[in-house]
């Protein structure tokens, strides 16, 4: 039952159109059989390939075998490029248009309109990823609270431009979806300033290696280090106005034990680096870089 549900969930929106296109290509193959044998074989090859790939993808034992061998592949199993879905649909659409053009302009206009209505109804604009809404909905109340704190602080000091922030990895990813004014220091910015990034990354590795406590598992080390995000001394080098930090004292029940030899006082650290604490939520601290 689970396998069937998975297929229903992952089934492509274009599947009906795709199967119709495959059938149309098969008809084309029959039409070309006497006129142009090479082209007819091409169409037959493509339509047969499409049907075989579609059936194999749909076949639960194949799915079970592949995911048993490679569990990580379940997410990418139905990568519909492999079915040649887009070329099949577009070739069929173009050939249908050509056929309709010979028949008359009215039909051609109707076919073209139908094609684009289907695209518009079933597709989304590629540059607005489908998960955006999901991510935004997944922002916790506390995350929304800290984003609102920043926006309010920026507004109070009359800053209408982009707000550069650094924080926990996932929080940064969510920030840019919460409000377009947020500009997390991540990815593209790093690509533009590679020297800064290289230095930072190496420092991060060294810092993380130092935290490799004896007997600690990789997972709990990772969880603890997420609280720090980057070594504190690196914050001063980052060109960002706001830093969001998990308050270590609130984050871990065993804070005292973990930091007993290495007391981490976030407020003192960031004050020394020219930041001031401008707000807090239950588990997070917000710092703003003082100008000058």
């Amino acid at each position, binding site marked *: 039952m689970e396998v069937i549900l998975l297929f229903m969930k992952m089934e492509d929106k*274009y599947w009906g159109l795709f199967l119709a296109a495959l059938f149309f290509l098969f008809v084309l193959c029959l039409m070309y059989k006497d006129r142009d044998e090479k082209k007819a074989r091409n169409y037959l090859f493509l339509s047969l390939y499409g049907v075989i790939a579609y059936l194999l993808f749909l076949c639960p034992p194949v799915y079970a075998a592949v995911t048993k061998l490679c569990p990580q592949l379940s997410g990418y199993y139905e990568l519909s490029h492999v079915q040649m879905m887009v070329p099949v649909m577009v070739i069929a659409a173009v050939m249908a248009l050509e056929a309709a053009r010979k028949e008359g302009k009215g039909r051609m206009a109707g076919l073209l309109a139908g094609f684009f209505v289907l*695209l518009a109804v079933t597709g989304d604009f*590629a540059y607005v990823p489908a998960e955006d809404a999901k991510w935004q909905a997944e922002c916790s109340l506390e995350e929304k609270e800290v984003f609102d704190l920043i926006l309010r602080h920026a507004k109070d000091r009359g800053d209408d431009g982009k707000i550069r922030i650094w924080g926990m990895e996932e929080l940064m990813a969510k920030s840019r979806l919460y409000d377009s004014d947020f500009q997390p220091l991540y990815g593209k910015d790093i690509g533009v300033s590679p020297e800064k990034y290289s230095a930072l990354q190496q420092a991060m590795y060294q810092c993380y290696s130092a935290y490799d406590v004896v007997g600690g598992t990789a997972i709990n080390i990772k969880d603890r280090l997420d609280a720090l995000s980057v070594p504190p001394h690196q914050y001063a080098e980052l060109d960002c106005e706001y830093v969001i930090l998990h308050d270590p004292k609130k984050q871990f029940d065993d804070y005292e034990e973990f930091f007993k030899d290495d007391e981490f006082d976030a407020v003192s650290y960031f004050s020394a680096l020219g930041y001031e604490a401008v707000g807090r939520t239950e588990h997070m601290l917000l710092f703003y870089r003082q100008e000058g």
Partner: protein
Amino acid sequence: MVILQGISVFFHMCVIPFLVGCILVSAKEAEKKCNVAVRTAAGLMVTYALYEILTLAMQLRGKGFREVSQMYLYIVLALAFAGLLFFGYEVVCKIRGKHLKNYLLLEKPDGFMIAALVLIGIQIAAILLMATPDKDDAFYSGLSSMSLSYDYLLEYDAYNGNMVKEISARYKISALPVYQAALSLFSGLHHLVITHNLFPLFYMPLAYALYDKIGKSFLEKEGHGKARGKFMFAFALLHMIGNYYVFSPENFLVTRIWQGKALFAAIGVPFLWICGQTVFLEEKTGIGRQMKGWFLMACALLACTFMGETGLFLGVFMVACQTMAGCLVTKKWWKLIPAVLCCVPELLIVVKFLM
């Protein structure tokens, strides 16, 4: 300095693959047109396969990133030199003066093709100017950084910079992040600039050119020669508005071409299709050309493995489907044997690294 570095990367990412491709995509096929895209893609598949083999072999022997990259550079430069000789011979002896203009110039585009080129240009501009990579991307760039900084060859997991955790087996078989680090090593340009800016700039047009080649094989001479333009226009448009779920094909080609899975979808899949059309459907070909076709298919499968575990399994899946369809269409069942032989390296990789 940056310009020189840019030229150096262009040489490694485009010129060398084109020259290597000249060895395998024959002059006879390219007599009328230079066929730059297919040759470059063929060369890429060979160079990727070479880097993959070297990486896997050197991993087993405990060698480092720089040693692999150095060996790769020597071999690939030798191949490129051989390709230059092939190309020179082809231009001087086979094409000669009267065909040269026809050979080098692109076909005159019609209105639809120009509109398609504009759409592709918009997509490239969008990815260069607007894209913000996610944390998945940080992992891949982390692997490249670790190779450059510590001479690692896919040894440790780059998530969160935790160097004490061994990398998962499925990432060990994919040499793409290390290859991207090698491009950075050869050129001096940072690997993030190469992946985020130059991969889309060079390889998105290549991906579309390969799909254009596929469209051409079906639509040539249709609609008074204008059907191809319509195909490319609709194809590019669909890639802009087809992002209906995170693994949709459109998403892969236009938003993250520097990642292995996306490179597989953008270049691996159309190239495997073109290989399949060549080896299964072309009848009037000599044994030499057939052998080249099968060799290219084997290289393409290794290149798909180089792009990641997804490419390994789905590449073989694609060849299996092509073999079934090809044998049914042509009734030449002996083609099952070379098709299976092409997949043997992938089987060995699965047994050695993933089981």
